[in-house]
């Protein structure tokens, strides 16, 4: 049997408002794993970050005993496998795991990029992004159905952790897209309230106002009004 790795040997290189980093923070909190949090300045990335993720040079990066793991959903699965005696986010059954991976991948592929187009673009392209965002929310609404969490019988799970960080972006999407999540996808809105109260999520996310201010900073940086 492989020796148990010392759990305090975890370092997270992250950026405060990153929804991807927040997924990892949520997973670490759900598993009660202690770790050192390192805030990266994305305008002046540390040598440690550049060496740990030479391909993408992006956060989050998890260092476990100095060894890097990259990509938020890959990091969360790594934590599941490296710390099997902690509360799990993925169910044991292969079929349920496959569905969880599919939906976490859907969130990954769709939400951030569509949201970014909402604040980067104007006119017709922005309208298209808005239509797409509504479609994404409705699709997720259908998947959630009447479940308390996306994890269903398992409880708060992999997909919940993958999507929860974006709940603090809802207010921004609503302002930019002129819609209300509660009207378009009421079950998602209710789910957002529920997960927002969960300790692991509450302590990992920043307020919607802070996220909206951050988008303002990004817009200035990209020269968008």
């Amino acid at each position, binding site marked *: 049997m492989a020796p148990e790795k010392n759990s305090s040997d975890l370092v997270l290189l992250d950026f405060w408002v990153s929804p991807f980093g927040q997924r990892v923070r949520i997973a670490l909190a759900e598993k009660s794993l202690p770790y050192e949090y390192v805030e990266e300045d994305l305008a002046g990335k540390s040598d440690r970050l550049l060496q740990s993720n030479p*391909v993408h040079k992006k956060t989050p990066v998890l260092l476990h005993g100095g060894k890097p793991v990259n990509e938020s959903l890959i990091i969360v699965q*790594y934590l599941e*496998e490296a710390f099997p005696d902690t509360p799990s986010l993925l169910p044991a059954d*292969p079929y349920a795991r496959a*569905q969880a*991976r599919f939906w976490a991948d859907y969130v990954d592929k769709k939400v951030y990029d569509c949201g970014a187009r909402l604040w980067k673009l104007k006119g017709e392209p922005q309208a298209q992004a808005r239509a797409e965002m509504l479609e994404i929310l409705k*699709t997720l609404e259908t998947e959630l159905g009447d479940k308390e969490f996306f994890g269903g019988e398992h409880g708060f799970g992999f997909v919940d952790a993958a999507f929860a960080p974006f709940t603090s972006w809802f207010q921004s999407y609503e302002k930019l897209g002129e819609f209300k999540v509660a009207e378009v996808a009421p079950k998602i809105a209710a789910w957002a309230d529920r997960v927002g109260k969960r300790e692991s999520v509450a302590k990992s996310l920043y307020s919607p106002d802070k996220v909206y201010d951050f988008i303002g900073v990004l817009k200035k940086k990209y020269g968008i009004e």
Partner: protein
Amino acid sequence: MSSPAAVKVIGAFDSPFSHRAEAALRLKGVPYELILEDLRNKSELLLTHNPVHKKVPVLLHGDRPAICESLVIVEYVDEAFQGPLLMPADTLARAAARFWASFMDKECGESMWMALWTDGEAQAAAARETKTNLTLIEGQLPVGKRFFGGDAIGYLDIALGWIAHWMRVFVEISGARLLTEEEHPVLCRWAREYTADETVRQCLPDRDRVIAALTPRKELYISIAKAMAAQR
């Protein structure tokens, strides 16, 4: 003991993603029925089972709702069935395998496409990026081993099967100088090993047939690549 639930794959003969699902099943020794789609005229069956993405492959196992997305399918097949493990045993190696498969799918596609089908400066820049990516991928082959999975084909070999078979077909059709022996000898050797494997060969479309099917689409590929270049 009841007989095992039937496994079906909705796929397409020239799809590298569809190949992943089939390769995983064959390597695990799982019998399955292949339902072939004409991707230019998608069936009700496909649209019903994959309403979200409307793409192949789709895995149907017994009566349960479909499993979609090729890499999700590969991991499912690995976990749901007995047989040699496709994912590495070590947790860090598993994370690395997932990372490089994701890198292939998310980061490499556009530049490879432009390197194949554009010309001039756009092509030169895309070719440089592609070669850098191929070098990074090549660097993941364990020294002295035939496959990314080590002595046996694994998850990452299957994920990268696109390079081993389809990329060589596209290179032939386009005439671009990519994936050459001179620049990527180790990756080329791996490509030959992968495509020659007894099990994998059975679900690789015949090379000449693929060339014949895809050559007429060259103009379409060029226009897609030009649109990508315009957006950059």
